[in-house]
Each structure stands twice: as structure tokens, then as C-alpha cells.
């Protein structure tokens, strides 16, 4: 797997020292950004998240200590490992700095290669701790039998369903897939994305999924099959649940009638699906009108039938596939994704080879990625 360069932000009012440090770190494979003051650093952080910050202590306007204090007040930045660079051997000062959760102190006359080694060791420790916490949570989730991606896909007459899911940086995020067989006749396929990332989104998934599963089963029991009605029910509950206040989720919900082979769809703030018409070679957007779950009590959901002909394919996916990191910054580009998909489909690829082509490279990935393909055989 490609090694991703660690980003570090270097803050020092001495441009020469900054250049020296930056060259040494770059040589060691780090990606550096440099700024000449703490004020500039704070501005920079609004659009850039480094893996670590190395800051001079003595700077005009705002010194390193003040800078650290400001960062500690901002939840988004307070956990970024921070190292003070100082020419001062004052132990009182060092103690004060460590009280501000500066992870380390380095004297400026330390040889640069030692500073690099120190930073490497610090980042390794942080990474190890993070992995241990993740393992703990994964174990807890496994014990509770909580899964956001199913093990198996129910058999459906004439339809081949494949899916692929990748967590962003291997930390579970907001995407969830489920296949639900309610009886011999109906099966539901759903793909959702809780807005927000990482563990926080992941925790909300279970509440959402429980509501969705319950709404589907209760609806079928009472003779109601419409995906739009099911979405409306889920949305109503989510909007009235205080625990889920301000939590929003997209959802694509499909119902397969295994007797007639019909496919019905309703969407909630989801990316429009893409339907590949094998005969004409066209890839068409399947739009729905529904709003994100949790937005307003009336989500304007509607159901439509999607008619797949032989060899047609339907793609349901989350924004992790349309968003990517480019040199000029991150981008969302649904149209380019659709165009690429259409070009690839002209070769009639298997899902496996399509996946290899479509999936963003690890360096350009910015979010969880999930795609489901329904192929009419």
C-alpha cells in the first residue's frame, strides 16, 4: 500500500530556520507547510489539517504559548500533536508548556535529524494509541453484533447484486448498507450515509438502521409496501427523536418484488442513481425528490419503478465516489464520475474489474466509499 506523506505545519518567525527545517523534513518524506507567525498558522488551519504542528516559542505578536492556548480552545485542532521549539532552557517555561498538553519540547540547537526522529517517534505513538482505541471499539461493536455492511446478499431472481465498501482511512464512517428480506416475495436494498464522519457518524448508524429495519418490517406487516411511505415513516421518527437532533442522513431505498421482478425506488437526499441501458449504451440519472432524513417532518418522498431490461445495470453510491482530492484541492464531481462509468461500461466489465477502475486511489480518497450494482441478467 502506498505510504501517505505526513503533513506537518512549521511555525517560526525566522525564515532561515524555517527553510532549514522544511528542507530536512521534506527530505525525510514529510509534506511541509510553513508560516511565519501564529496568526498565519491559525488562518492556515481553517483549510488544512496537519498531522503535527511544530512551533517556535519566541515569536512577536503571539508567542508559542499563546498559540497553543488558542488551539486548545478549538476542538478541531486541540488533538493535533504539538511540539514546542525553543532556544530557552528555562525549566519553568517547559513545565508550563507541558501543562498545555504540548506533546513535546525540543531545544532549537538540537540537530535537525534528531528533531525529525523525535517527530517520527511521536507520530508513531499517536498512531499506535489511535489503533488501540479503534480495536477496542471494534471489539465492542463485534460483541454487540453491530454491522454496517452485510455478510451476504439474498438471492433474487434474475438480479445479480454486488457491492463494495471502503472506510475512509480504515475508520468506520457514515456509510451503511443493508439487505432485508421481509418475506418470500419482497427484499429491500438500502444504502445510507450519515452526514458527518468517523466514529460520531458510525454511532448514529445503529439508531438509524434500527428505525429503518423496524419501519420496513412494520410496513410490510400492515400490508404497506411503498418505499416512499417507509421513508416518510423513518423520517418522521428521526425528526421527532431528540437524540438524533441535527443528525442528517441520505438514504436510497429499493424494494425488489421477487415474484414479478419489479424494482421500486425512493430516495432521501441521496446521490441520483445511475441506470445503464445496455441496448442504447446510455447512462441515465434516476432522480428522486426526497429530502435528507431528519431535515423536515415532510420530506416529500415519492416512489418510482425502475425498469431494468436484460443486461441493464443500476448503480447506487455515496459521495465518497464522486469526491476526490486533486492537486488544486478537494472536489465534488458527479458528472465526471458518471462519464467515466459510462466509458467503462462500454467494455461490459465484471463488477470486480469495474470496481478496480472506479475506486479512488487511497491518496485521493476523502470519504467513505460505497457502491452497489444491480445487474439484470
Amino acid at each position, binding site marked *: 500500500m502506498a505510504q501517505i506523506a505526513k503533513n506537518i505545519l512549521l511555525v517560526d518567525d525566522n525564515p532561515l530556520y524555517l527553510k532549514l527545517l522544511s528542507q530536512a523534513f521534506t527530505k525525510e518524506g514529510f509534506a511541509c507547510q510553513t508560516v511565519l507567525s501564529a496568526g498565519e498558522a491559525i488562518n492556515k488551519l481553517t483549510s488544512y489539517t496537519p498531522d503535527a504542528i511544530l512551533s517556535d516559542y519566541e515569536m512577536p505578536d503571539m508567542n508559542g504559548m499563546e498559540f497553543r492556548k488558542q488551539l486548545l480552545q478549538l476542538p478541531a485542532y486541540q488533538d493535533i500533536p504539538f511540539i514546542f521549539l525553543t532556544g530557552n532552557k528555562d525549566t519553568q517555561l517547559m513545565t508550563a508548556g507541558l501543562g498545555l498538553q504540548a506533546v513535546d519540547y525540543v531545544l532549537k540547537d538540537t540537530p535537525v535529524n534528531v528533531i525529525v526522529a523525535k517527530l517520527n517517534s511521536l507520530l508513531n505513538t499517536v498512531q499506535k494509541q489511535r489503533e488501540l482505541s479503534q480495536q477496542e471499539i471494534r471489539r465492542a461493536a463485534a460483541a454487540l453484533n453491530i454491522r454496517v455492511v452485510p455478510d451476504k446478499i439474498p438471492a433474487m431472481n434474475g438480479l445479480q447484486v454486488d457491492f463494495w465498501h471502503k472506510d475512509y482511512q480504515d475508520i468506520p464512517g457514515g456509510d451503511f448498507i443493508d439487505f432485508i428480506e421481509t418475506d418470500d416475495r419482497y427484499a429491500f436494498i438500502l444504502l445510507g450515509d450519515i452526514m458527518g*464522519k468517523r466514529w460520531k457518524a458510525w454511532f448514529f448508524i445503529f439508531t438509524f438502521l434500527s428505525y429503518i429495519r423496524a419501519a420496513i418490517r412494520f410496513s410490510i406487516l400492515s400490508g404497506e409496501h411503498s418505499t416512499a411511505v417507509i421513508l416518510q415513516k423513518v423520517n418522521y421518527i428521526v425528526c421527532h427523536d431528540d437524540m438524533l437532533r441535527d443528525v442528517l442522513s441520505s438514504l436510497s431505498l429499493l424494494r425488489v418484488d421477487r415474484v414479478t421482478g419489479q424494482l421500486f425506488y425512493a430516495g432521501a437526499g441521496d446521490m441520483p442513481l445511475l441506470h445503464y441501458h445496455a441496448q442504447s449504451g446510455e447512462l441515465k440519472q434516476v432522480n428522486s425528490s426526497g429530502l*435528507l432524513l431528519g431535515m423536515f417532518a415532510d420530506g416529500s418522498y415519492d416512489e418510482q419503478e425502475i425498469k431494468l431490461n436484460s443486461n441493464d445495470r443500476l448503480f447506487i453510491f455515496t459521495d465518497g465516489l464522486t469526491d476526490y482530492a486533486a492537486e488544486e484541492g478537494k472536489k*465534488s464531481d458527479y458528472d465526471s464520475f458518471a462519464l467515466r462509468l459510462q466509458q467503462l461500461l462500454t467494455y461490459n466489465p465484471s463488477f470486480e474489474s469495474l470496481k478496480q477502475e472506479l475506486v479512488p486511489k487511497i491518496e485521493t480518497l476523502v470519504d467513505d466509499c460505497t457502491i452497489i450494482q444491480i445487474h439484470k441478467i
Partner: protein
Amino acid sequence: MIYIVKEDKYLQVDVNLTEANLNNANEFKTQIISLLDQKKKSIVLNLAQVQYIDSSFLGAIVAALKHAISMQLDVILVGLQPDIHNLVKLIRLDKVFKIYNDYSEVL
């Protein structure tokens, strides 16, 4: 992160971010909601500087809109970059937000 450019019938607010994401979403939401509470005026949010928005930040803008609606106020979006405008339309947020090219169109 956000700056009040002008205060008249609306609060005209610039968002000074190139990448609006999970790291700044919560802070943004807190600031906009406290502006709504203090000023009790609808907000026109200028996103012209923003090149990329992730779903966490979109969630924060929606949370601000919901808060505004509960006060019978509004959050209006202006200056959306084409990619972002397209994304907003794709997920139907254009049905809930009023969207204009710039401040002058709002007034």
C-alpha cells in the same frame, strides 16, 4: 471563519474557508446559531471562497437553517461555486435553501 460584511435587513456573512469540512463544521454551526440568536435577523451566507464542502459541513448549514426557521428567519446562500451548486442540487438542498448569485440579487 465567518465575517459580518454588512448588516441591514439581512446579516451579510462571508465564509472565509477554502475547504469547509468536518474540522470546521461544528465551530461554524455554533457561530451562525449564536449570530441568529443575538441579531435575530436572516443571514445571507456568501460561500464564494469555498471550493469544497463535505457532508459534515452541509449538515452544519442545514442545522443553521433549521434553527433560523424555528425563529421564523432564513439562511440564504449566495456565491456558490459551480461544483458546490451542482452538489446542492443533486441532493435536493435547493428545495429548502433560497440560492442567489450574490448579495445584490437577494436585496
